[in-house]
């Protein structure tokens, strides 16, 4: 497992996860980030899956100087796995997952596959005086889901201890949240920009993290909504014959598939 350490200290960074081949949301996110006076932009992985034309996100990441780590989907595509490895019980979910995976594999160039294969598993950086660890699922497992309602404080403290960090940034679950422990350490799930977060609106979210000299060592976490041309994305998905259930999610903001991984509390907030 590789970890890349950033040599310089940052004041403000922008971080997002789960691009899911949504080039429209990625372009809108980078556009918004460009107006926010950030030192660097990070992506916590899962570049493909779900959306159309997976190769379109790579030039945007390159031009935006986005520093990425590897998600479980990127690892599966790069290593040529048979499927995304989600292992759903619902045959319907497996059907959609297979369709989407086969589509993404067939349309990801070998150059981009190699690039994803070379991405580090983790990055470490200094945000002000705080040491931050960037991972995909959790520091201990690339495909571990960290949901707000099922991640106890004791686990957050343990993950921070093991990572020797004051801040952990993760994604993978698709819904953003932030926990500040009583001792001032943080875990932030930065959310995803490729798919709305099951809240009934088509917008997506990225995260700004700031450690100003004036903030007395207190990390400022701001979740930023991004509105993008989701109707154009939906039209492209239809033209590519991607599952109508996925298109519905893009248009409505409600998750329609792969719901069994959601804990009760998060599931209760959605429509399905």
């Amino acid at each position, binding site marked *: 497992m590789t970890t890349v350490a950033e040599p310089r200290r940052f004041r403000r960074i922008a971080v997002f996860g789960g691009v899911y081949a949504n080039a429209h949301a990625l372009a809108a996110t980078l556009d918004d980030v460009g107006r926010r006076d950030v030192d660097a932009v990070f992506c916590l992985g899962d570049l493909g899956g779900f959306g159309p034309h997976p190769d379109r996100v790579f030039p945007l990441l390159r031009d935006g100087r986005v520093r990425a780590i590897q998600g479980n989907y990127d690892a599966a595509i790069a290593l040529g796995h048979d499927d995304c490895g989600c292992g759903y019980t619902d*045959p319907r979910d497996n059907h959609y997952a297979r369709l989407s995976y086969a589509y993404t594999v067939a349309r990801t160039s070998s150059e981009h596959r190699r690039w994803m294969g070379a991405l580090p598993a983790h990055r470490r950086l200094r945000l002000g005086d705080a040491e931050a660890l960037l991972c995909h699922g959790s520091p201990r497992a690339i495909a571990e889901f960290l949901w707000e*309602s*099922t991640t*106890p404080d*004791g686990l957050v403290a343990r993950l921070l201890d093991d990572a020797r960090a004051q801040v952990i940034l993760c994604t993978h679950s698709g819904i953003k949240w932030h926990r500040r422990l009583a001792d001032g350490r943080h875990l932030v799930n930065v959310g995803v920009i490729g798919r709305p977060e099951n809240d009934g609106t088509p917008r997506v979210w990225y995260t700004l993290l700031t450690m100003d000299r004036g903030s007395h060592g207190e990390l400022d976490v701001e979740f930023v909504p991004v509105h993008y041309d989701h109707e154009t994305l939906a039209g492209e998905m239809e033209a590519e014959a991607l599952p109508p259930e996925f298109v519905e999610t893009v248009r409505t903001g409600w998750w329609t598939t792969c719901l*069994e991984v959601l804990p*009760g509390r998060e599931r*209760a907030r959605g429509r399905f």
Partner: protein
Amino acid sequence: MDTPASAGRLTPAPPATVAFRHLTALWVQITGTFCNLQCVHCINASGPREPWLAPLAADTARRYIAEAAALGVKEIYFTGGEPFLHAEILDLLAFSLERAPTTVLTNGTLIDDAMADALAALAAGARYSLEIRVSLDDPDAERNDAIRGPGAFRRALAAITRLDARGMLPILTATEIDGRGAAPGEDRYGRLRALLLEAGVRKPRVKMLPVFPVGRMAGQGGGVVTAEMLAGADPARLQCTESRAVATGGVYVCPILSGFPQARMAGATLAETLVPNRLDHPACRVCWETGSSCRNA
């Protein structure tokens, strides 16, 4: 003298030993093997008469839950027997929910309106998720009750709809038990999901589990897991690399083997039991081959 099973074979490969990774789940076998049902496939042969394993003292449960939380556990599960037969179950759930997300595995028969109200209030006031998993094995009432006992289907479904009406989203949990009239290759998951939708449950949740050769199913298949099988595979497939179970008698290697003397781990504290273990029970092979988790997801 050779028995027929060993004649002509080389010495069988010994069971593998796996390292412990991290404590994800603590299972609390709160009522031992005391249950008001007596299902034909029960993994620990629970029942109403003369349970072979006594209920766990509430203070012991609290001590292990607190230790698990301090060790960074992710989830606590209450099981049995039937957990709602424990006199202090609501207090214990409240204690657990202050520390970690908590799930109860139940047959649903004791969840009347008052209990459903109490659970919904507990869930609404808790910091972390409270999940209720209600066991029901077959979408056909008659076939289900042949496995779980007369009236089990109706009462389990009633519990699910009571909890659902209070916004709890219970998880129907079924085993893949065969040979009782189920058509081979049938989509049991799909049929259970349809059953829930038909009962008015708008966000159906179904969890499938394999049948393990232990308890009332002892001797029916399975086998040890050898080092050769483990080579190059993901140890996360095995729950004993990330779970422990506490029951009367101490800490046990996993929820499936909880309470069985041969599965007991040495050590007075939970921390002392987070050490490598041998995959030497027939149930280990089922866990390994199916890669299925007793956890919710």
